[in-house]
């Protein structure tokens, strides 16, 4: 590979790649994200390659594995270009038929076409599917066309042009000014203006500075950072190099969560390729600026998503946060100025530089600009990644893009912002996604997890889930967080198991106040949010648990009792077979009885009974 040292060389290279790619007219694009891999998409890819080779079509039809398309609910999927035909939930056995019918005879296979879950209407082309059509895919869009292991694919899409522009046409001050004008705010959760952060880091006295990409995505139920890093690693890298130039940093780190092995592989490949073309290393684009980056795997601690804890872990110390009266932009990694940004924040940078701050700032609300990727999961029809412009309402995201709740169940709550966020009820659904609006409602934007819950979810149980999660993940350095979470967990467990007292809610609220005021880092300071919002919006559920010792959603198992209705029981023995406690007695074709003294309230009998003979109350 030749070093790319000027715009002419970059343009020539891009033309060459485009020419080469244009020679192959047809392309089968398959999503190769972690979600689809779990469905077995790599076997489908191999099947396509094998089948095309067998038919002598290997040179005429390209097979491309890309990063996550975001439509995880329907994987494995294939996009047939140039027609734009979209087939969903395909398996290896469908491969010969797709080649035979669709590729060769241009027939459509109805069985594999996406059908709208609400109307049942088939939609043939990917661009017409509401899930994609209603989004603004500035960041995720390229995931559909780029093979993450190929730097050429990224260059073909105009990659590294922003880097050239920044390094040769702009001064560091101009770049910072541009980012400030764009109104970009940190996508990791805090929402601090990125430009201002860069500025304060660049104005420090020390000459050695660092930039860090925080890919330690710990929020359970959120995976947009992984999909970006996994699907388009060069975009993040380009953003980082631009940022490093603006700040004056020479070394960068990409801190990736341990549970994301594919992201590590793709990012490592990206670093290697970027070095070969000279986008990393000495004298990038002949500008005299030198920079290199390194990948570090996390050790599996949620608290390491906090900037000072992450830096401690990078230094080889346990990931414990410190008090930040001196900011990390002044004294961060190895006590030197360090600028840390989230994956999605870095990914926005090339676009802002190349297209200008105005274009970016035109999207969004007054206080929040651009788009935000949400990971829309839980009880939702279209599970997946949604890139929405700021200001879109929660209702639009959940019902229009997400396709609503499956099985005709009723919506109960949406949880935004991960363990630091809150649960919002139905009446708050017209709230626009905006850093400040969500904070006003008691929740937060967070890194973008959006977990939808239906009538079968118990909000007290959800609060207990988050508190239990945080209690395990609290590093234990400061007392309010460590002890506060423990006590909160005890109280919530009591409520869930029927030992709740009249003043339990009050106790929870009092603990929250102390934790918010006195904890060392944001983990402790925001830990009470899920509890406070569930109390605020679903107080009646807490009260039913405490006063009536009942769980309206039948989730808190100590409060649910199962019995068999003699009238409906046919004696099929299905429940007898699945009962793990062996507490159901009854012969074939005779009414079965649950021994309440042995029952562990697991609900297996309720699940398997086809005659509605198991009653729960």
């Amino acid at each position: 590979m030749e070093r790319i040292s000027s715009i002419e060389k970059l343009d020539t290279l891009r033309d060459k790649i485009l020419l080469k790619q244009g020679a192959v007219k047809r392309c089968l694009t398959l999503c190769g994200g972690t979600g689809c891999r779990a469905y077995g998409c790599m076997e489908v890819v191999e099947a396509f390659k094998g089948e095309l080779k067998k038919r002598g079509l290997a040179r005429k039809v390209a097979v491309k594995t890309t990063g996550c398309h975001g439509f995880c609910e329907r994987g494995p999927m294939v996009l047939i270009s140039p027609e734009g035909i979209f087939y969903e939930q395909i398996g290896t056995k469908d491969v010969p038929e797709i080649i035979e019918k669709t590729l060769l005879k241009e027939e459509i296979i109805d069985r594999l076409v996406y059908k709208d879950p609400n109307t049942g209407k088939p939609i043939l082309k990917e661009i017409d599917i509401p899930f994609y059509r209603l989004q603004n895919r500035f960041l995720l869009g390229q995931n559909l066309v780029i093979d993450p292991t190929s730097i050429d694919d990224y260059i073909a899409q105009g990659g590294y042009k922003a880097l050239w522009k920044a390094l040769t046409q702009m001064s560091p001050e101009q770049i910072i000014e541009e980012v400030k004008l764009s109104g970009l705010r940190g996508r990791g959760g805090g929402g601090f203006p990125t430009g201002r952060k860069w500025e304060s880091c660049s104005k420090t006295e020390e000459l050695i500075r660092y930039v860090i990409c925080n890919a330690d995505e710990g929020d359970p139920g959120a995976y947009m950072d992984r999909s970006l890093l996994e699907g388009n690693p060069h975009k993040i890298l380009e953003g980082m190099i631009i940022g490093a130039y603006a700040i004056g940093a020479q070394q960068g780190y990409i801190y990736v969560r341990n549970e994301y092995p594919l992201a590590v592989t793709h990012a490592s490949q990206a670093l290697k390729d970027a070095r070969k073309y000279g986008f990393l290393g000495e004298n990038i684009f002949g500008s005299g600026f030198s920079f290199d980056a390194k990948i570090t795997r996390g050790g599996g601690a949620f608290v390491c998503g906090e900037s000072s804890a992450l830096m401690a872990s990078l230094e080889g110390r346990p990931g414990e946060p410190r008090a930040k009266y001196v900011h990390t932009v002044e004294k961060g990694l190895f006590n030197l100025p360090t600028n840390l940004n989230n994956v999605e924040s870095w990914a926005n940078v090339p676009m802002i530089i190349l297209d200008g701050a105005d274009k970016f700032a035109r999207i969004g609300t007054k206080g929040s600009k651009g788009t935000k990727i949400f990971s829309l999961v839980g009880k939702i029809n279209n599970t997946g990644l949604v890139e929405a412009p700021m200001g879109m309402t929660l209702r639009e995201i959940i019902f229009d893009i997400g396709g609503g709740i499956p099985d005709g169940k009723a919506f109960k709550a949406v949880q935004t912002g991960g363990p630091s966020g809150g649960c919002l009820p139905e009446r708050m659904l017209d709230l626009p996604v905006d850093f400040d609006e969500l904070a006003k409602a008691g929740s937060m934007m967070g890194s973008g997890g959006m977990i939808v819950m239906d009538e079968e979810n118990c909000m007290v149980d959800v609060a207990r889930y988050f508190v239990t999660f945080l209690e395990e993940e609290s590093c234990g350095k400061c007392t309010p967080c460590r002890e506060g979470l423990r006590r909160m967990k005890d109280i919530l467990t009591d409520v869930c198991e029927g030992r709740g007292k009249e003043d339990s809610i009050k106790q929870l609220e009092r603990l929250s106040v102390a934790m918010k005021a006195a904890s060392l880092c944001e983990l402790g300071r925001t830990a009470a949010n899920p509890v406070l919002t569930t109390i605020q919006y679903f107080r009646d559920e807490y009260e039913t648990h405490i006063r009536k010792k009942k769980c309206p959603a039948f989730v808190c198992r100590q409060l649910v009792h199962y019995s068999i209705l003699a009238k409906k029981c046919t004696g099929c023995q299905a429940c007898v077979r699945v009962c793990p406690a062996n507490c159901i007695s009854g012969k074939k074709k005779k009414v079965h009885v649950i021994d309440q003294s042995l029952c562990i309230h697991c609900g297996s009998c309720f699940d398997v009974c086809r005659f509605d003979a198991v009653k729960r109350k």
Partner: protein
Amino acid sequence: MATQEVNRILKRYGNDPTDIIAILQDVQQRYRYLPKDAMETLATKLDIPLSRVYHLATFFRAFSLEPRGKHELHVCMGTACHVRGAPRILEALERGLKVRAGETTPDLQYTLETVNCVGACALGPVVVVDGQSKGKLNPQRAERLLKQIEPEAAPKKKAEKASPAKAKKTAAAPKKKKAPARKAASAVKKTSKTKKTAKGTAKKRTVKKARR
């Protein structure tokens, strides 16, 4: 015993103490836990207190001070999986393996772990078995999953030379194998079940292929 291997790993990182977490990860990967002598060697070579190595080893979830099983089951406890019933999957697996989360079976075959989120939320509830995600589970399917792992373990055992400790395991394996066979026999009538067993054998074949 572990010293040589640890030295090799250290060399890869140029004896840089700031890389201690990555080094520990490699040691963990090699031995499936952090042996005491490996930690001592690291502390001496990198010139950091053993207490710090111990602190790191107990702070991060990725490390274990006790040997882990041959097969690792990570039950995803992410929010999306939780609202879709992950706690019941965990319970079913705890019952099936007779260990609690975080523990290893006495025969060192299985380790049951929880993980905060694997980001395969569309497939929830998910269990990652030896790096392979198995999704859309319910408690019954989770228990069946356990039975699918056992036969997969068989070829691996055969390939290894029979040492006294391993001979015990192979002796134990056929007993376990009998159970699903009996169940399958009782369900011959049900076409759905026979289909599933067919799937199981297909999976076995792919696993074998991968090993070759």
